[in-house]
């Protein structure tokens, strides 16, 4: 009797072994590498929300329709801890232990640069929903894609919008925090400003987390029309508070990522009003789609219901990374588990992909400095108006006129 029991136990153990179950799978294994802890946990958790929402919504509808069967997706998380080395370990684990079919990628460029070579080795496709640094695309990783266009693609738009104001800003001070993304943002702002004939009076890279009040005092003397800053959430909040405290209101204040974060409006209240930002998506962009969410507003509503926080473009971009895989899989009609040939075909399908999503048009560049980044969507200029993120440029996408110049802090 006892022997029988052991035999049964061993048998079940063996049949439950995932390696043996490899052949009969009716779901896709999706690896998710992102920073759930460490310095970049804020952003990492935003991407997690995006990936989760995609998987849950898709599974609620039964999964990905391939031929006449539906396949669900199962997410396997691996925390990169905001460290490149842990990101590489995470990739190796997902590739060898969990044997994932494809990967939804990291939050920051540093982690992405360490993860991508490992996935190249295992020939596993990855789409990152948020890494915006231009560095990644210059490396030309064959298996790595991104849904958010790099900042050197998006950064020029708000400057172009501002250049059409009346009277247009003539002078600018541009600064960026000393990390890869923020520095690239500041450089993109600078290039665009110089091209449009806005004189850059001062361009500086400043240490992260530094109190910039003295710097801003010096800027106040120069009286530039535009102050543009590349930084992360906390730094943006501190900069606005700084300007408020020294009571200096430039004609326009431009920032990048982080303006759309709920924390920005919540912490600054009235002082967040009329700050410009760059974005590729808001809940009010014009986008029609037949995949999961009919338009941006529907996505925004679903996100709000699921997480009780407004969705920003990082979260939307992350959900879109899932949509890209979904569409490409349907196109090549591959069923899980994906073989190496399938994955190769998947890359080709992704390169040819051109779909309409709630996020806008999705199309990955096949060559050039944006190699495998999404260049389908139009970068937007946004502004905070009445506590909401509003699109103010370019003209054909604008839902409201830009409020310019900035209302002095004292009169709010």
């Amino acid at each position, binding site marked *: 009797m006892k022997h029988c029991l052991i035999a049964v136990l061993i048998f079940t153990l063996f049949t439950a072994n995932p390696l043996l179950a490899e052949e009969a799978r009716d779901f896709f294994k999706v690896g998710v590498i992102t920073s*759930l*802890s460490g*310095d970049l946990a804020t952003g990492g958790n935003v991407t997690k929300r995006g990936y989760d929402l995609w998987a849950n919504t898709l599974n609620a509808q039964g999964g990905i329709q391939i031929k006449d069967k539906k396949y669900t997706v199962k997410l396997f*998380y*691996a*925390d990169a*801890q905001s*460290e*490149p*080395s*842990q990101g*590489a*370990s995470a990739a*190796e*684990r997902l*590739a*060898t*232990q969990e044997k994932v079919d494809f990967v939804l990628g990291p939050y920051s460029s*540093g982690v992405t*640069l*360490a993860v991508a*070579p*490992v996935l*190249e*080795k295992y020939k596993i496709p990855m789409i990152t929903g948020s890494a915006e*640094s231009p*560095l990644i695309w210059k*490396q030309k990783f064959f298996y790595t894609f991104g849904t958010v266009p790099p900042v050197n693609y998006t950064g020029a738009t708000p400057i172009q919008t501002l250049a059409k104001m009346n009277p247009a800003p003539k002078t600018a001070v541009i600064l960026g925090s*000393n*990390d*890869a993304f923020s*520095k690239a943002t500041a450089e993109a702002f600078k290039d665009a400003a110089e091209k449009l004939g806005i004189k850059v009076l001062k361009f500086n890279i400043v*240490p992260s987390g530094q109190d910039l009040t003295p710097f801003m005092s010096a800027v106040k003397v120069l009286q530039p029309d535009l102050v543009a800053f590349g930084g992360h959430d906390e730094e943006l909040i501190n900069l606005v508070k700084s300007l408020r405290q020294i009571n200096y209101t430039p004609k326009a204040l431009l920032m990048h990522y982080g303006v759309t974060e709920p924390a920005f409006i919540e912490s600054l209240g009235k002082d967040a009003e009329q700050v410009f930002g760059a974005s590729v998506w808001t809940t009010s962009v014009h986008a029609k789609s037949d995949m999961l969410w009919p338009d941006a507003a529907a996505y925004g509503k679903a996100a709000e219901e699921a997480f009780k926080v407004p969705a920003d473009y990082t979260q939307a971009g992350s959900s879109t990374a899932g949509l890209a895989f979904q569409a490409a899989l349907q196109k090549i009609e591959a069923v899980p588990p994906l073989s190496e040939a399938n994955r190769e075909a998947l890359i080709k399908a992704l390169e040819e992909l051109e779909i309409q999503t709630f996020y806008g048009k999705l199309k990955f560049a096949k060559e050039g400095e944006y190699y495998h980044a999404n260049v389908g969507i139009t970068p937007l200029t946004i502004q905070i108006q009445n506590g909401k993120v509003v699109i103010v440029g370019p003209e054909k996408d604008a839902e409201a006129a830009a409020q310019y110049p900035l209302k002095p802090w004292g009169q709010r």
Partner: protein
Amino acid sequence: MRHRNILWFASVLSILLILPLITDDAFFLRIITEAFMWIGLAMAWDVLAGYTGYLNFGHGVFFGIGAYTTAILMMRSEWSFPFALPAAGVVAGIVALFAGLPTLRLKGAYFAIATWALSRAVQQVALVLEITGGPDGMRLPPFLNPKFFYMLMLGIVTATFLLFWFLMERASFGLKVRAIREDESGAMALGLNPTKIKIQAFILSAVPTGILGGMYAYWITFIDPASVLGDLVTDQAVVMAVFGGLGTLFGPIIGAILIFLFKTYFWAYLADYQVLYLIILGLLIALSVVFMPNGLWGTLTGYIGARQALRKGLAVNPQAENETEKGDKTHE
């Protein structure tokens, strides 16, 4: 006793050598490789802190310098890895020599904070320089052969271990550094040159750390100031050494293995509770300091020593409070 130690060492080493032959599991090998790295870092930190009593809170600076040396030589000067790796150790050693001369004159908390300030300054330098790539960091050509890195890391860490074992436990150098830890002016009165010995220990701690940094750069393929010059390397090495037991060869090894395994297990299988990880690790460190001030290894050997002493009749009156302490004395 000595015989048994050598036997132990040989069998552990041979198991580790055979391991990559019987498994192809790249993730498993990567984890072990990283464990080796932390063992090396914790040992190297302890060789200064545990043996001479100088707490280097900027230990990570040598790791970062090593990583950047290898990366810069490979990417900017097109050196090949076999030459760029030893260079990492050499540069770290030279930096240790020049930084050590003034810094090692400081004592206690002042030394700790000076080394920490130095490491922060070096991180800022890497952020503003052109040659390091600034905040963008540097990418190295990927050479993703798990067995190569496993073997090399094992080799470096074993060599470090043997060197430390010889110098600290067998050669007179070990006695000299201990003399400095206990009483620096007394050591001087005996005709020792404390400055020279301290700098030797500092370099001894820096060189393997630099080489490990160089390894890391080539292994991970991407470095930036935040990842190789941040506080993580120092913090983790210190915690591992203290948890295992300072001033011993085995303490840091055991500390590194246990903490690294705990961390990795949590990370791989309990990812949903990632935030709890910080709380548990913090609590673990705090509790171990309160209840095991000698570290795990120190407490363990103390306990065993006490038992043996009692059995041999070298100690009497095993009051629970004094047991470990007496054992320690007899053991020494």
